[in-house]
């Protein structure tokens, strides 16, 4: 019998080995059902791959939901801030004898309710009416154009003893002002 190896160069052997049919190679071994073993192994890998794909899909979905929630919260908080600042600036310009002392709010992330309370100081009841009307107009715009339910209230602290505890409980957040005296 000729020794085949003597007629093959190493490159050819490698080529021959690598292209040797898989099924044929299996036939070289006797023993337990190797097809069964392989199919079990392949099934196991597929299950792992499925789990991995699900985990990746799940993570991707969670990531997308997280981004959407963050965006919602950001939009909501940005709108609250915008309303507060818009009113503060407008009052400063248009209501000369009315001073906003504090702008207080609470955040309702579930309902996206915008509730802002302006603590003001003024001697003029006409200015109070003016402010009330102005706040009502802003509420309407926010609800009609932006679809957010908005409650803008004010409290004139002139000659009134304030229940600070209730106020802190219902409106715990106060807008920071750099120029606050």
């Amino acid at each position: 019998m000729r020794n085949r190896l003597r007629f093959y160069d190493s490159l050819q052997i490698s080529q021959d080995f690598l292209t040797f049919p898989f099924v044929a190679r299996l036939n070289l071994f006797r023993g337990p059902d190797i097809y069964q073993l392989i199919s079990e192994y392949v099934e196991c890998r597929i299950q792992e791959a499925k789990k991995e794909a699900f985990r990746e899909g799940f993570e991707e979905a969670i990531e997308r939901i997280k981004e959407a929630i963050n965006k919602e919260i950001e939009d909501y908080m940005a709108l609250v801030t915008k309303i507060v600042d818009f009113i503060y600036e407008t009052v400063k310009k248009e209501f000369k004898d009315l001073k906003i002392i504090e702008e207080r709010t609470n955040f309702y992330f579930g309902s996206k309710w915008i509730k802002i309370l302006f603590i003001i100081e003024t001697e003029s009841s006409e200015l109070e009416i003016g402010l009330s009307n102005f706040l009502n107009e802003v509420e309407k715009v926010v609800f009609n154009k932006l679809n957010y339910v908005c409650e803008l209230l004010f409290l004139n602290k002139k000659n009134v003893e304030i229940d600070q505890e209730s106020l802190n409980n219902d409106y715990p957040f106060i807008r920071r002002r750099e120029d606050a005296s």
Partner: protein
Amino acid sequence: MPSFDQHIKQAQHNIEFLTSFYKTYKFNDWAITVSFYTAVHIIEAIIAKKGEIRFKGKEYKIQHSDQLSNILKTYKESLPKNFSEEFITHHHVMRKLIVNENFPQVSDWFNLLYNDSRTARYRKYQWQNYKVDLVVKTSLKELIEWANKESGAELNLTL
């Protein structure tokens, strides 16, 4: 649900109670409270009389503001965008939204009363005389005149 007549009768009842003590300025907290609830009856009377309102541009056949809440609770698909179901249970909030959209002539006056009723607890229910005058002689008076004109009611506020 109370009818138009029942709401008007209750509003007049409240007005008479208010005028019985208002000028003493001894019960300013009650003057504000009674004024607000008189306004509520006036608004509900007009809703009952009209029999339909608009909410976010849609027409609803209702006799009382609470019925809008029930409709929105039942047909959740009709809830406007960003409008949480939570608001349905806030009857005062719902009524104010109805007033703003349907009765713009008096929404500012109603809002002033609404503001005072919502902030009363933070001022420990202490009301200066000028505040009571503001509420009774302007807000409530304007609402009464509007209701009389709008519906033929004969509410009478004699101060």
